[in-house]
């Protein structure tokens, strides 16, 4: 896990790369990688690479980045972990490759030499990396299937700059911090800025599951998609026959166990975020069985939740005792939240309405002297536990009935009811209704008429949502799982997990967000849907199984004085507060 920088002055009209810019961008990512720093500028000063390293695999200096091959033809900066690197390395060694370190970074470099961009299908892990190929004078840029690891770029037509965050890119002092109305509109519509837009007009996200080249003189080439959740669901439809081969509990357990085992690969101790929910409890139980070292678990406790159903501390402690895991319950107070708030906003790479829970649990992990933690993030998207899996398909059916819009307005005073007629008839629209924070008509009052108009026009939010389920995954479950994992999980949960954990120099690993796992269990998911969650829960004691859904709730209402009404309305208030703090003036200042 690291922060990476890459600059390529690909057009001959561009000025040579400046070391000062490279260092400023890289230095801004210090919390992402406190263990080492490395920068490199090519002799002709057209290419620059930088890295801040958080050493997790091969702690020696051999893992320092940028990393070069022996021939001096390839160089790489890499952020993430490749969990199946031992088997990839073995395959390369059988082919005669000699390695000089024990890192997954070197495996990537050699795999690129052997397979070029086809290498991406072989990787199991989370990654964002840039390879400089001096032989062909081009860069190869790739990001993992789900977008667990971030990568952003700014391309001014002659120079392209990459970094692991938006703020680091701005820190170089060249990229304009001017806000992107599409990003602003996207934030207020969904609670996070939807990819590929960012909050800055000149910065874009490298989209999850894609790769591309940047060629000398020609610049960015065609974007190639190497993974699509929608496509996996579509393909799995013809593999349903496998779902009946064995008991779902057995199959799921085997596959999740395998994923957890992969996610435990590290040369440092691995911790685990333990709420009292099914996903994290199952992961903790599995990890305690398959790990060679004890897996330390972490839970948050709040005075405000004591004695209520939201208190996860006691149950988590009980489970930790049963699986013999060293455990830490970290008490977080209102005062600490307010004291941390400036740092939270400073670390928040783009405006978002979530991430505070990950901030504090990562802080606890850091305080325990650890730098890797497993999270149950992604379980709801994988197993269909969100209400949206029921509500959105139902809404699509109902909204197509005559008079549905009027009926919705009459029976509900919820702000969303007024929009059922306009949005509810398609999956994209119904999903926006379900997940949306504000609606397009409300934006002018919040961000101004001009910004709203331009933002909505560029954003085309419904097209953006629909593109996630293209090709059609084929089933209701497939569509919802694809929408949730390609939009909410990617833009909100994973991005928040990244900035909030990296701020404490902690790497979060997500065994339930795993392309290989999805491919394997997809036929079963289509056959059994959300019953699969029950199959996972079967390994847990009844007092965990019977509990209502939970997962690191934070008493935001009590801490922020926001209204005690429905969650959506409350989060609207929080979104305005966040944006106010992250507005462009401060955003730019904080960035620098």
């Amino acid at each position, binding site marked *: 896990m690291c922060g990476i920088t890459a600059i390529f002055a690909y057009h001959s009209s561009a000025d040579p790369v400046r070391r000062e810019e490279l260092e400023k961008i890289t230095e801004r990512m210090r919390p992402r990688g406190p263990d080492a720093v490395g920068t490199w500028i090519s002799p002709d000063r057209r290419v620059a690479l930088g890295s801040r390293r958080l050493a997790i695999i091969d702690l020696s200096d051999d893992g320092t980045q940028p990393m070069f091959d022996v021939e001096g033809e390839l160089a790489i900066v890499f952020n993430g972990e490749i969990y199946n690197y031992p088997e990839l390395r073995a*395959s390369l060694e059988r082919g005669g490759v000699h390695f000089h370190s024990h890192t997954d970074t070197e495996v990537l470099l050699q795999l690129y030499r052997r*397979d070029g961009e086809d290498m991406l299908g072989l990787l199991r892990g989370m990654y964002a990396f840039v390879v400089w190929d001096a032989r062909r004078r081009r860069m190869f840029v790739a990001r993992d299937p789900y977008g667990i690891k971030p990568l952003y770029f700014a391309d001014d037509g002659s120079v392209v700059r990459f970094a692991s965050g938006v703020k680091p890119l701005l820190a170089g002092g060249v990229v304009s911090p001017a806000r992107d109305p599409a990003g602003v509109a996207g934030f207020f519509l969904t609670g996070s800025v939807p990819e590929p837009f960012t909050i800055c007009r000149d910065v874009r996200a490298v989209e999850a599951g894609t790769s591309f080249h940047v060629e000398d003189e020609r610049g960015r080439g065609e974007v190639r998609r190497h993974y699509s959740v929608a496509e996996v669901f579509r393909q799995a439809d013809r593999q349903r*026959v*496998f779902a009946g*081969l064995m008991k779902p509990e*057995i199959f799921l357990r085997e596959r999740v166990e395998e994923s957890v085992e992969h996610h435990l690969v590290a040369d440092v101790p691995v911790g685990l975020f333990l709420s009292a929910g099914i996903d994290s409890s199952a992961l903790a139980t599995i990890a305690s069985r398959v790990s060679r070292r004890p897996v330390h678990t972490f839970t948050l406790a709040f005075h405000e939740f004591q004695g209520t159903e939201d208190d996860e501390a006691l149950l988590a402690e009980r489970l930790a005792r049963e699986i013999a895991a060293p455990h830490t319950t970290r008490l977080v107070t209102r005062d600490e939240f307010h004291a941390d708030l400036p740092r939270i906003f400073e670390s928040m790479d783009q405006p978002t309405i979530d991430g505070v829970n990950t901030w504090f649990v990562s802080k606890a992990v850091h305080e325990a002297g650890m730098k890797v933690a497993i999270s149950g993030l992604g379980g709801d998207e994988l197993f269909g536990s969100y209400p949206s899996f029921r509500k959105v398909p139902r809404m699509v059916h109902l909204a197509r009935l005559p008079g549905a819009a009027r009926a919705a307005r009459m029976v509900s005073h919820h702000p969303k009811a007024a929009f059922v007629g306009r949005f509810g008839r398609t999956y994209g629209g119904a999903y926006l209704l379900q997940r949306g924070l504000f609606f397009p008509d409300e934006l002018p009052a919040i961000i101004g008429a001009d910004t709203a108009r331009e933002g909505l026009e560029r954003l085309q939010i419904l097209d953006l949502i629909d593109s996630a389920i293209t090709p059609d995954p084929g089933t209701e479950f497939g569509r919802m799982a694809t929408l949730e994992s390609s939009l909410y999980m990617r833009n909100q949960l994973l991005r928040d997990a990244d900035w909030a954990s990296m701020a404490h120099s902690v790497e979060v690993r997500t065994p339930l967000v795993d392309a*290989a796992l999805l*491919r*394997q269990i997809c036929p079963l998911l289509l056959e059994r849907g959300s019953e699969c969650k029950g199959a996972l829960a079967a390994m847990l004691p009844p007092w965990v199984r019977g509990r209502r859904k939970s997962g690191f709730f934070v008493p935001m209402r009590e801490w922020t004085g926001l209204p005690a009404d429905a969650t959506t309305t409350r989060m609207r208030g929080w979104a305005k507060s966040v944006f106010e703090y992250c507005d462009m003036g401060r955003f730019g200042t904080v960035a620098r």
Partner: protein
Amino acid sequence: MTVLVLATDAYGGHGGIALFNRELVAALALNSEVVVVPRIVPHEPEPTPPGVTFVAEAARSRFAYSRAIARAALSRPALVICGHINLLPVACAIARHPVLMTFGIEAWKRRLAAGLNRLVHRCRAVISISALTRDRFGSWSGYRGPTYILPNPIHAERYGTRERRPDLVARYGLEGKRVLLTVGRLAGEERYKGFDEVLDVLGKFPPDVVYLIAGGGNDQSRLRQRADELGVADRVVFTGGFPEGEKADLYALADVYVMPSRGEGFGFVFLEAMASGVPVVGSKYDGGREALMYGKLGLLVDPANPAELRAAIAEQLERGTRRIPDELQYFSFEHFVARLTMVLSSIDDRSRAS
């Protein structure tokens, strides 16, 4: 002593279970009298080893089967080995505590008949052909008795590296081609052998790479259509059912044996391919990984990942040379007999102790 083996099929059968049963009976017959009562005898039975009574007429009708079972029961066998979980009611009618054999998907999930699931707990021991089958069986059945692993044996001397038979090369149009081979039943209701997965990646290889599918079954027309849709129909050859006695010649045609399956209990065909010196590609997620000694004898892939499958096939094609791995000795018939002897002795000791 007399051992009674209740088998679905053995002599005259073609599948993996029949083959295993023949080996089991041959090994048992070295020290015991063996009576084998089959449920079916699809083809002319092979000659049986000395000391083996194969009651072929039991397969004629239900009545004949019942009569054969009654006679076998009267002989008071010292040990009853139940060769399929579905035959457990019969085995339990003869013996209070039979030994159950488990192979693959038939034992991976609870059976529909609840009574059958209860009978499992009467078994004095369960023998599985792989750790995977043992674990999957254990996780639904809750069986707490002794379990043993007894993988298929291979008579490697019957295979070996050999030249391609010109008549077969001509028959299948393999001149100048590099051949990927899968041997297995083409069962439309199961589809777990991985034929589809190989077809999916075939187009990524140069045109001289062809796919030879050896086996009969009801899924051939669908696979042919799929090959057509993928534009590789001219590179896929179906042999249909292949004579058991010519299998060594079949393997000699192959450059890579590939079976990215999901439902193999063990995958005896991998042993045959390796005994023919053919590099193999198997699955990480079924019993095939045990035939490949968890990757020591061949490459393991995730069947759901086309990139991984393609890379593994490419690596094995690149290898080019035929070599029979020394480690294949682990699966020799001699080792099989030694393991079986230990298993039976352990079962016997436990029975006496209890």
